[in-house]
């Protein structure tokens, strides 16, 4: 049955009311996570088992496959409502027991969370330590939504912000709200989104574009994919609102080519939005036209860089342009193009719904709102978490993350993937803050937080990151292509214990020149991990030199 287009705000609200009227909140519902890690643990088999059981029950039990819940370490994840009962590491064999217990309003004790030290159990989501310390404004909806069903998004209030923006606010008012909220880019730049929107809006050319950067090339960052795969409509809603504010007629969602589920969900979301009249001409009778296309990268990290990404959308190789040609003024096909990260766009609907004053009440002085963090590395509880900016790292690492695995001690925390930095464990009380972390030499970046334990070889980490980047360099400019190759060469020698006097000074020179004169951010930040290593872990590097010179045996 094709859905007739919703042609006004009133029609949309009527439709939403119909959806809600048809749903019984007391009806038990099993939400099975199909996020990347759970899917990799064959949560699909778990979902199939639940569906098979539910088929015999005449509508007494609902089963829903959802996007990422966040607790990736303990997947396959299952959440039962009402009550938000969390079951972990669920196997198909556990399904009949869960179904039986759910129908009786009981809990399967052996599958709930147990504290690894005290053995204390936590049944409901708000009791589980991993979830308890988070503020899940963005990802909190994931367990409630089947990404293939727009109605699920509408049921939790989706597209209400779009209605509000289109029908009660002018484009200038929307822009103003986002500016006042001080929403800073979540992809790594931390640049004020409102200011960027304004530059594009004010650019002379009437043709304008908006872009979702869903590339997420930063190593160990997986929150954007979790959001986009789990709740594509939230990002789309943010994009349409942004386009309205900026005056853009067309949008591009740009993401990776290697995630079939993500592709399926986004394509479906775009088609459904179009079917419902939320994309296309005269959206909800507002007179605003907007369409959106899906584009894929072709397998190279640099295509996450905004100007390279735009070259890629044009069909050209992803060679970045120098930053003084601002893409907000001259981007895709030289038209003003506003690019923002998935998480940045995802924040927009709530800013419109609840206002800038509400948004600025969360976070620290200059870093407002929450941040999605992918916790991984040598951490006990890996996954996607969401906390207010300003939260101390200690909360992330210990209260949520559960500390370091295998009983080891924490040595370092790394942010920003190959273009970020590592800080030592004694800085654990630093707040998660754009500017603060930048000053410490470990900028938040996209939000991938890696724990490194006492056995981590910090020279090897720098070598590994440099190796990753050299393969991803486009090769156009000398300081990046040649500089990184030489830095990698020296780092490789150091890891083998073949460092000679002068090597560290050489690295510093190369790092400085590559950082200053490279064409794009890839080259410019390629030596940042190394710089943080020299700042906090220099003795470890020095030991690789003196060992060789002294002719003694290897320290590690």
């Amino acid at each position, binding site marked *: 049955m094709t859905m007739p287009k919703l042609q006004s705000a009133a029609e949309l609200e009527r439709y939403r009311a119909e959806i809600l009227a048809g749903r019984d909140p007391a009806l038990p519902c099993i939400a099975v996570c199909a996020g990347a890690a759970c899917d990799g643990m064959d949560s699909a088999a778990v979902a199939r088992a639940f569906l098979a059981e539910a088929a015999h029950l005449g509508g007494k039990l609902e089963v829903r496959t959802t996007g990422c819940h966040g607790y990736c370490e303990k997947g396959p994840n299952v959440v039962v409502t009402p009550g938000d009962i969390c079951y972990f590491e669920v196997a198909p064999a556990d399904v009949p027991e869960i179904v039986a217990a759910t129908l009786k309003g009981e809990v399967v004790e052996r599958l709930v969370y147990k504290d690894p030290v005290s053995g204390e159990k936590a049944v409901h989501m708000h009791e589980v330590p991993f979830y308890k310390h988070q503020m899940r404004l963005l990802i909190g909806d994931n367990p409630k939504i089947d990404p293939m069903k727009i109605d699920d998004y509408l049921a939790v209030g989706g597209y209400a912000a779009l209605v509000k923006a289109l029908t009660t606010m002018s484009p200038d008012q929307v822009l103003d709200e986002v500016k006042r909220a001080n929403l800073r880019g979540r992809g790594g730049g931390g640049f004020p989104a409102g200011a960027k929107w304004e530059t594009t809006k004010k650019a002379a050319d009437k043709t304008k574009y908006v872009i979702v950067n869903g590339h*997420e090339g930063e*190593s160990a960052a997986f929150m954007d994919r979790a959001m986009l795969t789990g709740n594509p409509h939230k990002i789309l809603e943010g994009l349409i609102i942004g386009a309205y504010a900026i005056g853009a007629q067309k949008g591009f969602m740009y993401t990776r*080519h290697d995630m079939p589920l993500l592709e399926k969900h986004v394509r479906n979301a775009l088609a459904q939005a179009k079917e419902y009249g939320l994309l296309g001409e005269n959206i909800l009778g507002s007179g605003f036209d907007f369409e959106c296309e899906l584009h894929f990268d*072709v397998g*190279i990290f640099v295509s996450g860089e905004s100007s390279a990404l735009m070259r890629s959308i044009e069909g*050209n190789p992803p060679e970045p342009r120098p930053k003084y040609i601002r893409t907000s003024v001259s981007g895709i096909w030289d038209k003003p193009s506003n690019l923002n990260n998935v998480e940045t766009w995802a924040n927009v609907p709530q800013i419109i719904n609840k206002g800038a004053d509400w948004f600025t009440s969360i976070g620290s002085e200059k870093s407002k709102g929450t941040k999605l963090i992918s916790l991984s590395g040598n951490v006990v509880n890996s*996954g996607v978490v969401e906390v207010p900016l300003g939260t101390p790292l200690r909360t992330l690492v210990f209260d949520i993350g559960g500390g370091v695995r295998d009983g080891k001690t924490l040595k370092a925390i790394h942010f920003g993937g190959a273009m970020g930095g590592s800080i030592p464990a004694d800085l654990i009380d630093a707040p998660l803050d754009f500017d603060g972390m930048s000053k410490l030499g470990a900028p938040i970046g996209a939000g991938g937080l890696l724990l490194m334990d006492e056995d981590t070889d910090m020279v090897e980490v720098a070598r590994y990151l440099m190796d990753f980047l050299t393969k991803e360099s486009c090769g156009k400019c000398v300081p990046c292509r040649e500089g990184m190759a030489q830095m990698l060469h020296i780092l490789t020698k150091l890891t083998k214990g073949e460092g000679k006097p002068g090597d560290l000074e050489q690295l510093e020179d190369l790092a400085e020149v590559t950082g200053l004169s490279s064409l794009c951010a890839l080259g410019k930040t390629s030596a940042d991990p190394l710089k943080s290593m020299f700042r906090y872990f220099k003795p470890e590097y020095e030991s690789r030199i003196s060992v060789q010179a002294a002719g003694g045996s290897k320290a590690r």
Partner: protein
Amino acid sequence: MSEQKIASIIAKYRGQPSSLIHALVEIQHENRWLPREVMQEVADALEVPFAQVLQIASFYKTFSLTPKGRHEVHVCTGMTCHLRGAPKLLAKVEELTGLKAGETDAENRFTLDTGACLGSCSIGPELIVDGKHYGRMTPEKAEAVLKSYE
């Protein structure tokens, strides 16, 4: 049949130089590699210099300029997997297949690839064969997994 499908892809993008990457992606997806003659046809049909097609086909690692094996074996070398033991896993897979990243064996059974971060860091290190994830892999378990693929 592949040839017909390739011809129809090329026909779809005829005269549209800006669709070069789309055309190559579809052909790669269909044919699993980009033969030189096909790239020449694309250059002619889309009116782009052959040098540009070669540049793009060799720049992006999604494209394969040699035929791929029946099974694509991918070892994730992202940062988390690296910290959790990917190098040892990779060494074992290299030993078992006799391949280094980017190579295909003589019987066209396996193509080995490495690459970063498929977003399932919690179950690293990972072996992915034909899109199927084998999480929390150890070098010992790798042999059994690969043996199951003819």
